[in-house]
């Protein structure tokens, strides 16, 4: 499975991850790794456990069992702060925005810029936020409105801007384009390619097969909490993936696509 061209060590390895909620087995013995400059798609039906797996990596949730290694060293991910220290940034499916605060306050929440005297440097945060948001959406206005008053797409843009502003090494994108229009979605696709070229590793959760085939190098499919297969994107087609997502198995006649003909 390992690409021979791949010389570097993995950025992240998640090994034997389990997550139980009472009787529910949300994630069951899942292992996955991520290399620099790689986009790995995490696919699966609703409730398959994709978000849980990613939240474990971002420190938002603790695993019931399993190990996480970053750059080869075993780490704990007890809090979101710890993940951020390891260079892991996350765009949450829920966006995780404080509705009463404006875009800049949300972008810098928990990592506020301060003046010499330790006061909030709102002017600088505003200017930086404006730059970061304009990169994703050139007509981003309402920077000073509480984000509750913004559209779903604008809110998503803030969540994306926040994740990339702090120069992540590992980026988790949980359905980052769910609320975006076509041009913003294209912008995010460009962004992903740019980050990839910079050597950043990306986990991408998406239900959009087009995006998955356009952007991902590898895909992992989850079904009822289990990893039912990890493939190089060249080895599978849309029907294979749909079969894995829905039934949890490949079509009976499957062989790796890149080795056919």
């Amino acid at each position, binding site marked *: 499975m390992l690409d021979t061209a791949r010389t570097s060590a993995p950025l992240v390895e998640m090994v034997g991850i389990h997550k139980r909620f009472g009787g529910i087995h949300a994630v069951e013995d899942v292992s996955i790794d991520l290399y620099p400059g790689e986009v790995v798609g995490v696919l699966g039906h609703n409730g398959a456990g994709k978000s849980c797996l990613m939240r474990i990596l*971002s420190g938002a949730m603790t695993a019931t069992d399993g190990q996480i290694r970053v750059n080869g060293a075993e780490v704990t991910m007890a809090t979101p702060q710890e993940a951020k220290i390891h260079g892991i940034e996350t765009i949450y499916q829920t966006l995780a*925005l*404080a509705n009463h*605060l404006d875009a800049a306050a949300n972008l810098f929440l*928990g990592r506020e810029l301060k003046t010499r005297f330790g006061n909030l440097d709102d002017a600088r945060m505003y200017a930086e936020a404006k730059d970061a948001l304009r990169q994703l959406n050139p007509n981003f206005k309402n920077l000073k409105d509480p984000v509750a008053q913004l559209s779903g797409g604008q809110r998503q843009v803030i969540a994306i801007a926040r994740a990339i502003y702090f120069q992540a090494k590992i980026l988790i994108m949980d359905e980052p384009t769910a609320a975006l229009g076509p041009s913003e979605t294209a912008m995010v696709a460009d962004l992903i390619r740019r980050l990839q070229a910079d050597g950043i590793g990306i986990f991408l959760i998406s239900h959009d097969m087009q995006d998955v085939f356009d952007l991902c190098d590898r895909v992992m499919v989850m079904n009822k909490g289990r990893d039912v297969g990890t493939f190089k994107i060249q080895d599978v087609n849309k029907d294979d993936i749909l079969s894995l997502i829905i039934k949890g198995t490949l079509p009976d006649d499957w062989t790796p696509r890149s080795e056919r003909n």
Partner: protein
Amino acid sequence: MSELPAKTRLRFLPSGSALHKFSAMMTLLLLIVAFSFTSPAFLTVNNGMTVLLQTAVIGLLAIGLTMVIITGGIDLSVGSVLALSGVIAGLVIKAGVPVLPAMALGVVTGAICGMVNGLVITKMRITPFVATLGMMMIARGLALQLTGAAPISRLGEAFGNLGNGSFFRIVEIQANGFPRVIFPGIPYPAVLLLVMALLGAFILTRRQIGRHIYSVGSNEEAARLSGVNVHRTKIWAYTASGALAGLAGMVLMSRLMTVQPNEGVMYELDAIAAAVIGGASLMGGVGSISGSMIGAFIIGVLRNGLNMAGTSAFIQQIIIGIVVIGAVYIDQIRNRN
């Protein structure tokens, strides 16, 4: 042609919370005008200073409650904590400690009670309502137990300074030898309230902890995921509320020149009402010190004005109750639009 004026007009329309503050301010002014007509003694310098003095205690409590309410919590214990802080200060003064360190200890007592509230709420995951209800009973019980429910008096001249002293007091000795007060002076409690309100507003708007207080009340999970230390933020808010309750206790007991373990019953409700009238939302994420100060003065002016007009204490309660509901109702209507 027609679009431009519309746009400029929109610019001038205040945002939601500014509008609320504006209407609260108008209410306050309206009350002052109305009471000036009903009782001629209302709009005098002397009475103005009395209102300032009376509002200082509720105002101090309201600063702390505003912070707690913005985090999405509530602090029902401040009235009892105020009494306990007074009792501790009184007891140590009786034991021979000078007034200033004794009062400092009183404030620290309040801060400790507040910190316990914060720890119970975050570490034991008890809801703020229940945790501070418990503290309300514990602090009151302690205050009564430590004093045998009896007031502590004869605490010395110096103990009365904080509550009764004032800046710029001008007194003239008349020909007959009696003093005549030309200007009653600005009471220390009023100055203390102003200083603490400015400090509170500064912390809420200009400091990181203030930003975190708003974020926790707005969306606790989002704050946590963004790297805000939610527990620390809440503990900070409850500790500040407790310390301010301690400070309010010092002001009140000093004004009475005695420590009354029974003082401050139901003060928490006035302070909560002040914050709510001033635009704070019990759902969290919304509120301001300036709004709460206007709210505190609305309650203070109402009480004082109704008193002077000879309205009974019972009727006063009814009217203040209606004002609280009215303020929140108007806010609801505005938010729906």
